[in-house]
């Protein structure tokens, strides 16, 4: 009876059941993975702490070397001079200072260097030079950027001494302290105005062509300066963000020396919304076509020292490789293939990129890669930026920041009212 009562009806749920958890052993593979991860973690900790120690040591050593270097101000090191020459000068003047016929004057066996010595070389390196110039009876009409803002006194002394005594048979070198004295006087001056002005510095220089007279400043020059420095009721001043000399700061770009036509196009793109930036869209919409052209010409003609320094912890060697040779294994041609040797720019579509603010460059590359900026001709920058890793972008931005600034454009490269309007229209049709 009892047992019959107790007998469960299999159709009913078991009311006496109490849930329980069985204690099972943790399977062995879980232990394996946990232990492997722990070992790997400890290994990585030791590994990275070791490498940071090495880096710290190397940095300390470098600092020490730098200090001892600046301490001995006397004799510039010719080997260092040669290395600096090949990094900074050889791109244009050639590895042996042989120059390029018709474009870049020779430094090896040059009458200017022979007569002016290391001191004249320092003056030219510091300020840059533009306009007609005769060297060894050949005439040149190029523009050399001012290296004063990107090279230290010590570095300039080594380069100038190498050019005077290594590439020519001069005997007098120049010390870092003498360079510092020259910097005090001429560090902020405009580039030398061709051979004519140089003749005042170097005694007995053979006949030099007449200097080009600087373009007469139009009646609007004052208005433009006001726009740049003070702004208007509706538009704040350019200089408040881009700096007094248009040198830029962090993600605000350098404008000095960029092609006028390029600047006009960018401002129009901001107006139309083809390039996005809230501040710039507001400013550009507040500008008339006339003002845009005047501003573009103003900045295009500006020669300013570099306001950029490598600051993104990029690998400068990798950056130099990308800029000079490219990395074809990822489909990226050299920056300089289109932006010109040393990033000087090729008007109107390819702006100068030398001495551009590294944060700005890295930021723009990221925007192109992501599609937020898409106003480059043929969309060339999109594909290139996508192919670059984040580290590559920082590296190339830092390398470009280490270059001397692009000098101001010649008046001939300025935009006039009519042509620029049609040029802007044309280029917008390309998109």
């Amino acid at each position: 009876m009892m047992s019959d009562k107790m007998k469960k009806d299999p159709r009913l749920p078991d009311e006496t059941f109490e849930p329980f958890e069985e204690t099972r052993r943790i399977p062995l593979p879980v232990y394996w993975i946990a232990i492997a991860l722990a070992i790997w973690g400890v290994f990585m900790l030791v590994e990275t702490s070791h490498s940071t120690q090495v880096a710290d040591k190397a940095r300390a050593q470098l600092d020490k070397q730098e200090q001892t270097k600046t301490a001995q101000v006397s004799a510039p090191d010719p080997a260092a001079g040669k290395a600096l020459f090949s990094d900074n000068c050889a791109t244009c003047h050639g590895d042996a200072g042989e120059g390029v016929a018709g474009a870049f004057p020779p430094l090896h066996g040059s009458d200017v260097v022979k007569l002016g010595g290391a001191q004249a070389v320092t003056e030219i390196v510091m300020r840059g030079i533009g306009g007609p110039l005769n060297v060894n009876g050949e005439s040149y009409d190029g523009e050399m950027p001012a290296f004063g803002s990107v090279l230290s006194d010590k570095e300039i002394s080594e380069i100038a001494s190498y050019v005077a005594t290594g590439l020519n048979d001069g005997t007098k070198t120049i010390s870092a302290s003498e360079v510092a004295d020259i910097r005090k006087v001429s560090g902020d001056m405009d580039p030398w105005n061709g051979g004519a002005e140089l003749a005042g510095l170097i005694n007995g220089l053979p006949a030099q062509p007449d200097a080009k007279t600087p373009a007469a400043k139009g009646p609007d020059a004052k208005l433009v300066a006001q726009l740049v420095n003070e702004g208007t009721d509706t538009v704040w001043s350019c200089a408040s963000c881009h700096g007094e000399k248009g040198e830029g700061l962090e993600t605000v770009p350098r404008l000095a020396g960029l092609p006028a036509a390029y600047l006009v196009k960018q401002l129009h793109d901001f107006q139309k919304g083809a390039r996005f930036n809230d501040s710039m869209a507001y400013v550009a919409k507040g500008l008339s076509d006339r003002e845009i052209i005047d501003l573009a010409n103003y900045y295009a003609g500006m020669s300013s020292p570099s306001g950029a320094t490598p600051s993104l912890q990029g690998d400068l060697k990798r950056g130099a490789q990308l800029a000079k040779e490219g990395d074809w294994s990822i489909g990226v041609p050299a920056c300089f293939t289109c932006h010109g040797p040393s990033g000087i720019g090729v008007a109107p579509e390819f702006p100068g990129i030398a001495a551009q603010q590294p944060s700005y460059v890295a930021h723009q590359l990221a925007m192109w890669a992501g599609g937020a900026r898409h106003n480059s001709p043929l969309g060339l920058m999109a594909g290139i930026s996508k192919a670059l890793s984040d580290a590559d972008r920082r590296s190339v931005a830092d390398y470009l920041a280490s270059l001397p600034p692009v000098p101001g454009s010649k008046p001939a490269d300025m935009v006039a009212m009519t042509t620029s309007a049609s040029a802007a229209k044309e280029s917008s049709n390309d998109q």
Partner: protein
Amino acid sequence: MTSKHPTDLPPSHTPKPSRGQTTIRAILAVGGGLTLVVLGSLAVDYGLAPSWLTGQKPVATAAAEDGSGLFTPPDESTIPDDQFGQSVRRGMAIFNDTGTNAHDFVGNDLSCSNCHLDAGRQAYSAPMWAAYPVYPKYRSKNKMVNTMEDRIKGCFTYSMNAQGSPSGGPPPYGSDVYRDLQAYFFWMSQGLPIGKKQEGAGFGKIDKPAQEPSRERGKEVFAANCAVCHGADGLGQKDRNGKQVFPPLWGPHSYNWGAGMHKVDAAAAFIQHNMPLSQPGKLSTQEAWDVAAFIDSHPRPNDPRQVGGITVEDALKKWHHSHDGFYGQTIDGVLLGTGFPAENQAAAPAAAGDSSGG
């Protein structure tokens, strides 16, 4: 009697393992963990781990068997630091800036690296590593067996238009220019078998176009895709210091009528595989043929073989009958192949520009 059903019993806990069992398990756990670490590091060492995991780029092997089957030439940093290495570096400098480093023998504004991209390393832009191991070879162009030196001499003669150079001709046999260039090519081709045709050689193949190439369509393709760099007039662009940045595609400072690139099929293949720079393959087969026809139907310097009163008609029969080009045709009222009289060099760009209007 309340005998409970077995299933109603409170859960029976597994008996506590004995000490010995725990030890064995601990040994097994630690041993297995160590084995995993060893296996993992071995996998990384032998490159079996995927690159996204290790953050390392796969190492390029000499005859890259990475699926593309293309040879990867050695890195510039591996150029040795000795006399040979110096020659290699000089060769590379000549290759990349021919007008500066072989100044006396260059009669136009081009460099070797304008067509042989990435310093002669890029597949399908006639890479030098594919060319070097197949010389000497017989060429019907000059009906003789050509050494690499003969071949480079041909490049100077035609593509670099040496007739307009300061010396008036290509480097003489035995010149250091050949020595250094060959050292560069040899260094680049290390590890490749002699005489074997490599994938990526020349400009690659291009299909025949569906329609006969059209200069008119080509003109539009050019304006939309090429003009931004090569200029609306095709004469290239210089930077403000007068240094050539974008090469001229026609006119007095481009390759002459004897250069391989004047053949429309060669130009079309090059264009489709390499242009616009960084966007290879952007143009369709038809577009590549059309724009090649447009580019190669403009005036350019004379064929240098055409001396001693040889007329365009003679030259056409002798050298230009068997290939795909515009030599000897009259386009927009200009007989192509008459070159630019030396004294008219300054006026020539205007003439070239005019004819592009067609």
